[in-house]
């Protein structure tokens, strides 16, 4: 196995996990933090080295060969190309900043070692996911991040709600995983390989465009992506996942893991291009998710839930881009989103810790003077979220997505995207105003304790804030060469019109929000508290009632059928072998009386029977 920077970049987190997991708490909080943060920091350096030494071609690093039987030589290999490197840079770079911030955030919490062990394992699994040159290895990483997500959502395991949230995330994403696994089976059955490069070359040879098999395979893979990326209808777990510590929300449920679905579809772009109907479905699901989540974000009171719905909404944009064939734009938005959403979550974390774990916006407010760093983070991150023209990273990526949608002549998706931009402006302004302006809603908010640590508190926020501006957008190298041509390449002109529209949407959103929240606040509260307004508020607050719907349609009938099946007569027949076995067991337990002598007697009896049989058999033994 060659030791290359790429290998190092995922070995460091693995070693961190192992050291932490086997230290059995002997390292102490400080030692655990140093190892947990340091391993990801080293991984980030190794990734930087890998990026600098990248030649531009896709290279395969074969770690080892599973078995070697004739022509069948499955290997564990890493595929390194621009896409993988961009993902690695996001995972380790943003991941390192979040780990660093976590050292501040988690001070004084119990189980720091467990926290960092899970976090490092998560980074390792995510690296495996993006580096695997084989869909099976990718699936391993895919399941690994799901497991780490489960472990970290349920980090405060003493609260039953947290455990439920972790359970929900695990089960809902598992539904998606089953689809993905079925998709992999189908691909393997039809194409005879799971190697990504081979799959992409063979798929067009084996399947006609729009054929049923291609559609089915793309649909199944999409199912997996929907679960992991929290898109309708498998999105219900994401808001509940905010039960975990805020750095976890930042790393897993905003910056990296939830974008795994985007990565998967971008990686398997050839497969999806063979299924135009599924591509359209991807775009439509993205549009629905982005609108639905944006409306839901309007009616949340918990800071983290607002951010969770906005994450879902932004991922909806990425799906929209994927749906129109603009893979590069989706990855671009993925990268900028990772920067500004991590910034927003970490700033929210700073507010939450400063205000003694108060995260209800109604009880916050008036903090902008007292928590200047967090406020700055929110302003810059919020600007990027609403895609403030020219100065923010989000503008460039979102503009690209909307332009591709327009160029692809999908006007429905374009309008959804523009409407989403308006809504994004409204809920972001509401979030910032509710948290930092107005009157403090509680004592915690009146007397916050601002974070003062330069390295673990200020540094991550400042670096992420810089990356959330246009500088972050410049850093993105552009992966156009890796993907099939986006629709925008072929269309001349019209980009200016789109930019005017996009800027108009942003300005409209901000203006509307300003008008609503600053000038017409009493009227707004009035509308939201009675009649149709109150029902709408409630509907949005519960994110259109998907949880209740699933409960009625899926969970309760299932429970009912389980109750019915409990009194099944077939069950009795099934139990019969068990009963017989238990009868035998009771008899044998009695013979097991613990006395060596009786064992000896039984043994001798058996030997005697055999010898007698030999002696009495006519003809003798010899």
């Amino acid at each position, binding site marked *: 196995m060659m030791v290359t920077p790429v290998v190092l970049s995922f070995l460091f987190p693995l070693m961190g996990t192992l050291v932490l997991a086997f230290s059995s708490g002997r390292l102490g909080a400080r030692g655990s933090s140093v190892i947990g943060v340091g391993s990801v920091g080293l991984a980030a350096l190794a990734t930087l080295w890998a990026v600098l030494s990248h030649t531009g071609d896709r290279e395969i690093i074969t770690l080892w060969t599973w078995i070697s039987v004739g022509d069948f030589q499955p290997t564990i290999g890493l595929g390194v190309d621009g896409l993988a490197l961009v993902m690695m840079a996001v995972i380790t770079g943003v991941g390192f900043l979040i780990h660093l911030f976590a050292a501040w955030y988690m001070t004084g919490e119990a189980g720091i070692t467990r926290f960092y062990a899970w976090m490092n394992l998560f980074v390792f699994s995510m690296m495996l996911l993006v580096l695997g040159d084989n869909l099976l290895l990718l699936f391993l990483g895919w399941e690994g991040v799901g497991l780490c997500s489960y472990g970290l959502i349920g980090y405060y395991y003493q609260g039953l709600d947290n455990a439920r949230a972790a359970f929900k995330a695990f089960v809902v994403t598992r539904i998606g995983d089953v689809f993905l696994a079925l998709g992999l089976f189908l691909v393997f059955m039809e194409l005879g390989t799971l190697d990504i490069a081979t799959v992409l070359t063979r798929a067009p040879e084996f399947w006609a465009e729009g054929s049923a098999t291609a559609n089915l395979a793309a649909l199944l893979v999409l199912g997996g992506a929907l679960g992991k990326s929290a898109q309708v209808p498998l999105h219900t777990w994401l808001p509940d996942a905010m039960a975990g510590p805020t750095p976890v929300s930042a790393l897993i449920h905003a910056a990296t893991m939830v974008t795994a679905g985007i990565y998967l579809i971008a990686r398997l772009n050839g497969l999806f291009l063979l299924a135009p109907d599924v591509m359209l479905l991807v775009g439509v699901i993205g549009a629905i998710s982005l609108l639905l989540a944006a409306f839901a974000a309007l009616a949340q009171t918990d800071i983290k839930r607002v951010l969770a719905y906005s994450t879902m909404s932004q991922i909806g944009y990425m799906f929209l881009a994927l749906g129109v064939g603009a893979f590069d734009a989706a990855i671009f938005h993925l990268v900028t989103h990772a920067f500004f959403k991590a910034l927003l979550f970490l700033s929210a974390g700073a507010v939450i810790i400063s205000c003694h774990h108060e995260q209800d916006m109604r009880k916050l407010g008036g903090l902008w003077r007292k928590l200047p760093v967090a406020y700055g983070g929110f302003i810059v991150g919020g600007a990027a979220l609403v895609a403030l023209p020219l100065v923010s990273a989000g503008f460039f990526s979102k503009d690209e997505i909307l332009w591709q949608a327009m160029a692809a002549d999908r006007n429905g998706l374009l309008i959804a995207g523009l409407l989403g931009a308006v809504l994004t402006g409204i809920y972001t302004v509401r979030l910032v105003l509710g948290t930092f302006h107005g009157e403090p809603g509680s004592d915690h908010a009146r007397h916050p304790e601002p974070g003062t640590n330069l390295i673990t508190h200020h540094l991550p926020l400042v670096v992420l804030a810089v990356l959330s501006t246009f500088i972050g957008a410049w850093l993105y190298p552009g992966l156009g060469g890796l993907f099939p041509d986006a629709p925008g390449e072929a269309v001349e002109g019209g980009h200016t019109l789109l930019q005017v529209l996009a800027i108009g949407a942003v300005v409209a959103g901000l203006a509307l929000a300003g008008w609503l929240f600053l000038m017409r606040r009493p009227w707004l509260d009035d509308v939201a508290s009675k009649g149709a307004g109150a029902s709408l508020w409630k509907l949005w607050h519960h994110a259109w009632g998907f949880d209740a719907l699933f409960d009625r349609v899926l969970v309760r009938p299932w429970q009912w059928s389980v109750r019915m099946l409990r009194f099944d007569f077939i069950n009795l027949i099934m139990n019969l072998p068990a009963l017989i076995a238990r009868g035998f067991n009771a008899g044998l337990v009695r013979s097991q009386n613990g006395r060596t002598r009786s064992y000896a*007697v039984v043994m*001798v009896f058996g030997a*005697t029977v055999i010898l*007698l049989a030999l*002696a009495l058999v006519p003809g003798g*033994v*010899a």
Partner: protein
Amino acid sequence: MEIAFYLSGLVAVLATVGVITGTSPVHAVVYLIVSLIAVAMVFFALGAPFAGALEIIVYAGAIMVLFVFVVMMLNLRPDAERELTWTHPRHWLGPSLLALVLLGALLALLRQGGVSEVIDGELLTARAVGLTLFGPWLMVVELAAILLLAALVTASHVGRRSNPLNRKMTGNRKRGGTP
């Protein structure tokens, strides 16, 4: 020759009966030594003086000394008294019959086997045995060495006095280190 064989064979059987029926541990050990020496005599009579000498040195000498030491070390008088109540004739019957049946089966098999060789007392010298041992049987010698080493380690581990497992039960006794 024959007389020596049959006589010492008889002594061996009688002494062994003494071993398994006795109540006093010391008497039983002495009976066993007698039995082993009698078997050694059988070896001499059969013409295997090397085996006979080894039997006396290793078995009757070394192994039985170990037994005697342990018997001396432990206070077995209460056990010896209880042994009388443990060995009720009722309990003797089944196992004895079983052993008898097994003996019958063995004898029947011997008869069927039809071994007709006669041992005429020709000597098998230590030289022949040694040549075999360190020739074709070298591997067995190595295995025996490893077996002894394993037994040494096991015995010194299991025989420790201050076994952490039984500290609770022997808590009131003086805790010595490994002897």
